[in-house]
């Protein structure tokens, strides 16, 4: 059976499996903001017992559609049907009254109340006066048990980790018998294991007949979860739920309007010249016996689970965590990396996972964000040459294809992709040769991801070495030349990327859990 036939079959199976009753239907929704058509004739149906993926890049119209469903935006034209009857959603209250529950990044929970109080927030079971606490706790216990969430109804919300708070938020939507539960990028703040728990929860809710609209741009996650996918691009439905196979290359191609090969535009630039050699590296924070070499033009991917020690190795290399054992050689010369300043001087660059708290200066424009790691390079005598600084920044901004507004604009006005490029530009200007990229595609949309991959190519083409850390196995396998698998702070295997498959990466997972 060839691939095309397979795809057609899957599509047919998809369509046939959609057996639940239609709860919500959008017909030909149009919404314009000035000349921009944010939603251009969007139609979709949501059925009971179905997880419906809604995917698209930033600007594809996802958020506008959600806001329409929440009653925050009014469509210019089009019909919304609930259980087959046309309804209007003039405001958020009306949407809520019809059972539309939205789980945003920011939770609508009260931190100092208990889980039970939160689940029934605003609708506490009461007697004539007062609240029937026993009833409420009992009901909460039932809901939590039904969804197999291992949280006590008496826990105070603020004491729970964020992932658990999110589950409470979802349980709340479920308990209120929501006719549609909208989840907007729910995994953005979650670790890999927490994502598994969340998905298991959503699958249980599906079995109980919930209708879930799941919005994300993380395709590799979505394919594990959803029943059907609607793809948006430029405000239009580019592939309907009936037409879309649950298949990463297909979805990505539809989403970005380019083929998947262009999505991972890997170039092989590795040379045999060693730029970094690490021997017997160890730190107090659990890194031990780490040995590897990095060549000019090479991408060394660090594979392994969250918490396996990849970031800790990066921290040791960048002088953040002090070494207890081992040595680091840059271009054959031993270097002592006692601080990030020393690491910068030795030619290291570090793109932190959380660029907002660890990377960007929100009080600086793009220009100053770019030059901050190499102010020495701007000195004329003891004075910074501000005219040259502008030139340098303009050069970097053009070279990396950053939005020109970044030159004088502040960081909070830039997209995630542009922010990431600003930090990369900082290190290019600092003359770094060894780039440690910790989750560089975290939280940026799929088009910007491709841009980051192209930048990795550019780094290697210029002869730099790249250490690439990512939780996305597809990215890791597509963009690395060699892969070092990390487990419990140790490098357990280094292999050419062609000799590593996803199972190898997951095998590490099993042993960590054991």
């Amino acid at each position, binding site marked *: 059976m060839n691939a095309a036939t397979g795809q057609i079959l899957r599509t047919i199976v998809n369509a046939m499996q959609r057996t639940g009753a239609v709860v919500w239907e959008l017909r030909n929704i149009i919404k314009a903001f000035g000349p921009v058509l944010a939603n251009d004739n969007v139609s979709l149906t949501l059925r009971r017992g179905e997880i419906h993926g809604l995917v698209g890049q930033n*600007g594809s119209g996802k958020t506008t559609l959600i806001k329409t469903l929440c009653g925050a935006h009014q469509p210019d034209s089009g019909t919304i049907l609930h259980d087959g009857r046309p309804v209007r959603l003039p405001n958020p209250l009306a949407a809520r009254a019809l059972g539309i529950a939205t789980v945003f990044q920011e939770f609508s929970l009260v931190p100092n109340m208990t889980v039970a109080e939160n689940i029934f927030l605003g609708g506490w079971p009461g007697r004539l006066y007062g609240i029937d606490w026993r009833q409420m706790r009992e009901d909460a216990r039932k809901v939590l048990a039904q969804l197999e969430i291992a949280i006590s109804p008496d826990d105070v919300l603020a004491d729970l980790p964020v992932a658990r708070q999110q589950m409470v938020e979802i349980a709340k939507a479920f308990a209120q018998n929501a006719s549609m539960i909208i989840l907007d990028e729910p995994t953005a703040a979650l670790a890999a294991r927490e994502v598994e728990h969340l998905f298991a929860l959503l699958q249980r809710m599906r079995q109980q007949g919930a209708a879930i609209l799941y919005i994300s741009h993380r395709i590799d996650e979505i394919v594990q979860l959803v029943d059907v996918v609607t793809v948006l691009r430029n405000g239009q439905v580019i592939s309907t739920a009936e037409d879309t196979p649950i298949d990463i290359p297909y979805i990505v191609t539809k989403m970005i309007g380019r083929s998947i090969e262009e999505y991972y535009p890997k170039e092989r630039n590795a040379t045999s010249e060693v730029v970094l050699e690490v021997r017997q590296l160890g730190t107090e924070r659990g890194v031990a016996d780490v040995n590897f070499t990095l060549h000019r033009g090479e991408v060394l991917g660090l594979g392994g689970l969250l918490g396996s020690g990849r970031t800790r190795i990066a921290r040791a290399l960048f002088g953040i965590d002090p070494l207890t054992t081992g040595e680091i050689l840059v271009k054959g010369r031993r270097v002592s990396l006692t601080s990030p*300043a020393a690491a910068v001087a030795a030619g290291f660059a570090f793109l*932190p996972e959380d660029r907002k708290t660890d990377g960007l200066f*929100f*009080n*600086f424009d793009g220009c100053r964000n770019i030059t901050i790691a190499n*102010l020495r390079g701007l000195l004329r005598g003891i004075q*910074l040459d501000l005219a040259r600084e502008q030139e340098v920044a303009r050069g970097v901004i053009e070279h990396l294809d950053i939005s020109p507004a970044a030159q004088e604009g*502040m960081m909070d006005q830039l997209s995630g992709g542009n922010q990431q490029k600003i930090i990369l530009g900082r290190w290019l200007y600092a003359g770094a040769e060894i780039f440690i990229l910790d989750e560089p595609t975290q939280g940026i949309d799929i088009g910007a991801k491709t841009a980051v991959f192209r930048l990795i190519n550019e780094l290697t083409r210029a002869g730099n070495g790249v250490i690439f850390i990512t939780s996305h196995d597809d990215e890791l396998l597509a963009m690395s030349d060699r892969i070092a698998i990390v487990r419990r702070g140790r490098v357990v295997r280094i292999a050419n990327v062609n000799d590593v498959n996803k199972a190898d990466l997951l095998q590490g997972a099993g042993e960590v859990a054991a």
Partner: protein
Amino acid sequence: MKRIFSSSLFGPAVATTVVTLLVMATTDRFLLPGNLNNLALQVSIVALVAIGSTLVIFIGTIDLSPGSAVALLTMLLAMLVKFWGVGFWPGIMITIIFGGGLGAINGMLTAYLRIPGFISTLAGYSAYRGIAFMFNLGSPVFDVSPLLDSLFYGTVFGIPWPLIYIVVFFAAAHWFMRYTRLGRSIYAVGGNAKAAHLSGINVPLTQFLAFVIAGLMTGVGAVLMAARLNSGSPNYGAGLELQAIAAAVIGGASLAGGRGDVLATLLGAMTITIVQNGLNLNAVPTSTQGLVIGLIIVLAVGIDMWRRELADGVVRLWPGRTAKLPPTDKEKSHDLPSSV
């Protein structure tokens, strides 16, 4: 038009202008040459000390010690010159350097021993004045040196020396913050200390040096304080630290760190001094003065935060023009990231 409104000096300049106009409206003695001269002398001490306070605010913390440090330093200067046989100019130098030393203590505690600046300088606030009382049985020292008066009351070409100090030190501070690595690093550390660390900036050293500079400026302020009455006293400088902080805040320095313009601090100091001067000329009691300064702080910071709305209002008076301004820093910090 746009440039004027979006300048970080706009809000503070409006505040200064408004209080000047108000004071001029209430008393015609304000513009007398004698009063203006007096004003320059009065503003100088607060303004010079406030340079240091502003730098400390820029790195994201606060300095509560300058008032007490001034008391200790005026006593030190008086003792050195009058009783301990140190020459006049060496005494001045030692006082300023000792001021830097007190700043270094604050900096050491804050940057290297990681005691929050509010606490470490609160300790200094208490301790430095305590030490000041240990000299000369706790009594003020009068008639320190015949040379001392002229540092404060002297003139060159008719311009009072304190005015020249203001110009020189503020020009230097502006240059320092804008054109030196350390100045840029201070903004970076105040804006995001973690990112600064990961960009290779020595964060503790930067914080430490900001405190040392603040101490040196306190030393300069102390010399002028001593010169004003040719004396040293453990009671000098009470409340000076709060006036200096108020000057910085009216000047638009963000207490969150990383944002502000040191030149605006001069406008802030002028605003406070002009208000006090105007109230004095109108014989308003001291208690009311405190209340008025409090209102000024709220208004001045408010004008800065609302300036986009204000600009819209002004521009609307010109038909056919639309106001388009970047959001001010303070507004931005409240905005949530938006997406379509």
